């Protein structure tokens, strides 16, 4: 168990100006870590919500600050947006008597594989994996290759476990596209797990349209009575759509492990 009673934890989420659920997992995990009393302060900050990345460090009073991106992969946000907006110079930034420690995104944690598999199991209880296509869907972007690489890596590892008849990947903004799932999967049962942090705009509202289980963008998940009505029968296939993996309560521990990993990796930078 880590204890950082003199440090602050700043969790960075994407947030949304359209979907109130986008920031929910970031707040959820921050609340849990705060409840455990491990840090002097715990704050959330967002690209699209307040407090913004430009404001949050003013709120922090500790001199020792861990910044953890609650993002599913390394990529445009973790490599461009967050360092730029927080004016970071590298993994360790020293400024005005403060030390800002920039950790890896939570999606780098090795337990993501187990979380993805658990989500797949929970979404389709009793459905035999050996007769099922598992489709991991991510964002993907032309702005940074690493976004899709992270999902690709998960797919590769899960495929090697030989649990599912096939394990495929698909993306919103780069090929193979989510909308092509019918031709890119072969089994009657298709379990789709969003490799996303939140059941927000993309995962809850956009991807169901791309999959064809909704004809248009629905209201946000928190404004629906029922989260999903699995399975969806489409063209003779049974499709099961899971909740985003970032909403797992275990993610609070993943965030804490990300801090531990940072300390281990940057032991010498910090001693300097």
């Amino acid at each position, binding site marked *: 168990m880590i204890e950082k009673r003199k440090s602050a934890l700043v969790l960075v989420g994407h947030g949304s*100006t359209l979907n*109130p659920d986008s920031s929910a997992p970031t707040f959820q995990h921050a609340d849990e870590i705060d409840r455990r009393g491990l840090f002097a302060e715990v704050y959330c900050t967002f*690209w699209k*919500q307040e407090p913004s990345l430009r*404001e949050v460090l003013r*709120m922090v009073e500790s001199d020792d600050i861990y910044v953890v991106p609650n993002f599913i992969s390394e990529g445009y946000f973790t490599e461009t947006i967050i360092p730029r907006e927080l004016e970071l110079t590298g993994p360790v930034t020293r400024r005005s008597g403060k030390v800002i420690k920039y950790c890896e995104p939570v999606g780098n944690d090795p337990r993501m594989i187990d979380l993805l598999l658990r989500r797949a199991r929970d979404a389709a209880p009793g459905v035999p994996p050996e007769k099922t296509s598992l489709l991991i869907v991510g964002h993907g972007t032309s702005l940074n290759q690493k976004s899709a690489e992270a999902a690709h890596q998960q797919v590769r590892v899960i495929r090697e476990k030989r649990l599912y008849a096939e394990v495929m990947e698909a993306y919103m903004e780069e090929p193979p596209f989510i909308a092509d799932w019918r031709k890119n999967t072969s089994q009657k049962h298709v379990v789709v797990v969003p490799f996303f942090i939140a059941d927000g705009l993309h995962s809850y509202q956009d991807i169901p349209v791309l999959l064809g289980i909704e004809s248009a963008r629905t209201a946000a998940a928190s404004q629906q009575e029922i989260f999903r009505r699995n399975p969806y029968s489409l063209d003779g296939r049974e499709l099961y759509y899971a909740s985003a993996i970032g909403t797992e309560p275990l993610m609070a521990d993943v965030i804490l492990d990300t801090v531990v990993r940072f300390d281990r990796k940057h032991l010498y930078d910090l001693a300097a």
Partner: protein
Amino acid sequence: MISDELACLIRDGYNALGELGFAESLSGYRLYHWADRNSLSQARVYRSSKDAREIAKYDSSGAYRPLKGAPNLPRGWVLELPNINDLKRALDFFYPGAIATWLAFREGKTEPVCLRQTLNRQTGMYRVTRKLTADQAQSLVREACRSDSRCLRTILWGIEPDHPPDFLPASKSDPTVDQTGQKRAALPFLCLEACNLLVAAARTTVKKTSR
């Protein structure tokens, strides 16, 4: 400590921030919508600072409030909080960073950032915002940030480097003016840099013009 400073400010007579009113109570601090100050006995009582986050999430019609400075907080609630730390946390859920920003500004630890600088560092889908002209920027800010309907923050940044926000009504850039127009003893609610919503609106403006 920011909460100690807040306690001093309240003892000095400050009792409002944005649409909020607050005061010491027998059991700690009380926080409410300013418009409800004379009908608090009818308000629904909440006791956790985290309730503030939920109250601030939607307006009275149930619409999501992405911009926390918008003058559309729902009414009919009162937060009874045990101590100053909880009051500070609740205020940070309603108006994230407002108190820290004012204290930092007052102590000369932070400066406003002009809109041009904010737009010029944008990348990806927002890179195009650097094409926003000064005239477009002025009309956009005048409309998108107006205190009567859009945002209660006091704008301290101009469009170009070293330019004051003199295209706005003088009251909109004066930290001593209560943006709700009620002349209360309100803590200044500052805007030191354009928010992401304004950057997104700048993108829409540029895209419309280039069509």
